[in-house]
């Protein structure tokens, strides 16, 4: 009854560890989102620090060509979660209903604000949309962090560790946004952004420690033992080293290296989340990765059709970022009208 013209194995995974590979791919998509849209959020949070309209436009132009593409990683994350782990997708989204709806709305606010600010040459009008943009850029990473915290620690949206995960994602976004702006600007604006970047990096480390401490103290789902393990220590130490190296890079004006180290820090945060979740991918119900994964055939098809495409996607991301590399020029994005 089963026809199989694709020559894809039906009863066994292409490789035995394929479910774990897809857990890795899922976390990779999340990390790309945190790192890339994170810098868009950071720019939104830094916007009110600029009084002059010219400087605000420079900030907006920095992310104009790339944010549409950055944002797609969230959809990639959601659909990969559905494609590989449908029970986790169902439980995570339906059990945190109001939180997810709130995230969607602040995300919408963030998305339309720069488009609408362009439409009138009126200071009050622009300032009002900038405030909306700021609010969306602050609240989205915070609520997303709380959602991820709730996923990992269970215990309801208002638990202390979850709130600190929210704060962690906010400080990380601010950090990434400032570093990206330092890379895209010159002169005194660059120096000031670099200074914000160093401050936010310090805030990020404090927030991470707060997550670890509160999770250790309250021990939701028995994470205490995991938090004291070697891999977590390695992740934390590497993060501290990278943040410290970033400070050195920033003082020497090596902003490209700084940006790369910042992106790595974002990836390490998601690695930490992945480590806490593995192998129980939904702690609230105790569902393990192997229980939640789709059947071998479905995962094999997703692998054969999906994984090569992901590689191509990374190639054209590289192309997009290279086209718009270097300091901002006139006509790069919002503000100059398109």
């Amino acid at each position, binding site marked *: *009854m089963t*026809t*199989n013209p*694709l020559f*894809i194995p*039906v009863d066994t995974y292409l490789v035995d560890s394929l479910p774990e590979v897809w857990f890795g791919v899922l976390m990779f998509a999340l990390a790309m989102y945190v790192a890339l849209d994170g810098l868009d959020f950071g720019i939104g949070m830094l916007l009110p620090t600029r009084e002059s309209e010219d400087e605000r436009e420079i900030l907006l132009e920095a992310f*104009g*060509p*790339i944010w*549409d*593409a950055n*944002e*797609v990683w*969230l*959809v*990639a994350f*959601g*659909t990969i979660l*559905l*494609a590989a782990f*449908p*029970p986790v*997708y*169902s439980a995570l*989204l*339906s*059990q945190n*209903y*109001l939180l*997810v*709806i709130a995230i*969607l*709305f602040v*995300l*919408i606010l963030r*998305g*339309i604000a720069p488009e*609408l600010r362009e*439409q009138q040459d009126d200071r009050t009008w622009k300032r009002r949309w900038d405030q909306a943009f700021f609010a969306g850029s602050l609240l989205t990473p915070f609520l997303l962090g709380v959602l991820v915290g709730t996923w990992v620690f269970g215990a309801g949206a208002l638990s202390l560790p979850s709130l600190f995960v929210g704060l962690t994602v906010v400080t990380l976004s601010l950090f990434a946004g400032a570093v990206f702006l330092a890379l895209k600007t010159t002169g005194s604006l660059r120096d000031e952004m670099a200074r914000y970047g160093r401050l936010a990096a310090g805030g990020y480390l404090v927030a991470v420690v707060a997550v670890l401490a509160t999770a250790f103290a309250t021990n939701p789902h028995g994470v205490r033992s995991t938090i004291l393990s070697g891999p977590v220590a390695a992740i934390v130490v590497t993060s501290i080293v990278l943040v410290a190296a970033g400070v050195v890079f920033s003082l020497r004006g090596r902003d490209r290296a700084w940006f790369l180290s910042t992106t790595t820090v974002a990836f390490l945060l998601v690695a930490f989340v992945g480590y806490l979740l593995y192998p129980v991918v939904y702690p609230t119900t105790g*569902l393990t990765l192997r229980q939640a994964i*789709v*059947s071998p*055939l*479905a995962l094999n*098809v*997703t692998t054969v*059709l*999906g994984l090569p*495409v*992901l590689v191509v*996607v990374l190639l054209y*991301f590289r*192309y*997009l970022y290279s*086209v*718009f590399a270097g300091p901002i020029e006139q*006509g*790069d*994005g919002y503000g100059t009208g*398109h």
Partner: protein
Amino acid sequence: MLGAELASRLQFGWTITIHILFASLSVGLAPFIVYLTWKDVRTGEQRYARLRDFWVKVFAIGFVMGTVTGIPMSFQFGTNFPIFSEVAGELIGGPLAFEAKMAFFLEAVFLGILLFGRERVSDRTYVLSSVLVGVGAWLSAFWILVVNAWMQTPQGFELVERNGMTIAQLTDPVAAFLTPRLPWMYVHMQNAAIISVTLLVGGIAAYFVWTKRDSETWGTALRIAVVMLLLTAPLQALHGDAYGRHVEDTQPQKFAAMEAHYETGQADLHLIAIPTSLDALNDPRAENLWTLSIPGLGSFLASGGDFDAEVLGLNEYESSPPVALVFWSFRFMVGLGFWFIALGLWGGYLTWKGRLTESDRYLQAMMLSTPLGFMAMLTGWYVTEIGRQPWVIQDVLRTSEAVSQTLTSTEATLSLAAFVVGYVALFGGFLYVFRRFIQMELDRIGVDPDERESDQPPITGVFTDDD
């Protein structure tokens, strides 16, 4: 407070109603933009560059709106219909993930280059970017329709027990991706998107031609629209007729709802139906109507040639979709479809006579038709989606069984209210920005603002909220 099920259905229906307008705007505009970019590069004529610049701006704002209205949709399967996600996850998850990875990324990345990269890439790369954005939009629609077509005519799976639940497990990927409905749906939907955008382009062009008689640029756009309409509107009618037969074969209940056909037996076709009172609009049996019907034609169409063929009636089923809604949506769509054919033929005749930009009556008809393509598309979508009820996956899972068990009616009603208000605001925002583009174009083609005030043309259909 509405119940969780009803509120969830209304929420999904409402968000997709708004989202689909922007999604089709992308799908329909893509070929126009590729054509105009290509003509611009090939001929170097100013008018193609100007038309292209105008519609790329519309495409860009439509894409932003499509993204922000679409991201919630990709999560609503989980928030409101988690049982559906769990039951069908293996079958729908793959295509939805392919949509994000193959299509959405392609569109978003190259749109960045199309909008902001004119000075940074070569002409050839620039034209290629416009093509890739279009390919992204069309692929995106393809994968979404793979999922929807599967829900209408599901196959390639078997029901198995997993984690204490009965779920659909993939057994045949080719059958599951290429369901019987997919080709019908894809052709009908893409063509509907092109017709919708053709009428939008034609209506806006007619408006500019009307305000400024010597507008060479927008006369060109109007001619393109007429040609497109002549190609696409008759195709939609012919294809729709055959599509109806396919629906009767695969979803007889939906077909019966379209004609409000209750008793199994010979079916008539109601060419025209007019309610004799307001109550008749809501009458699920569609009885108190003045109709112009052809006896047996329903049977003839459903069977492909037999006037006496037996057509299953709605009485055969335990529960029916909201029949009045399906019945009227279908009539609205078909009626508009015939109007589009007439509009195309009329425009073709005027073009042949060389009077296209001079006929006041035609320009007015075009302007009034600006939103009608989108309205026909939406009502067609309602026939498809509401007509399938009570099933979310035909004959496999009922909508009532697919809804979240933990969702309270308060949460569902609150979020529904938020989505109604939020998406009205988004749509209003889009109309506002679109109107700004039109004002800028009027300034550019040199229309005196005072003159414009006194001679406001009848374009109310598009701007009902803002004017």
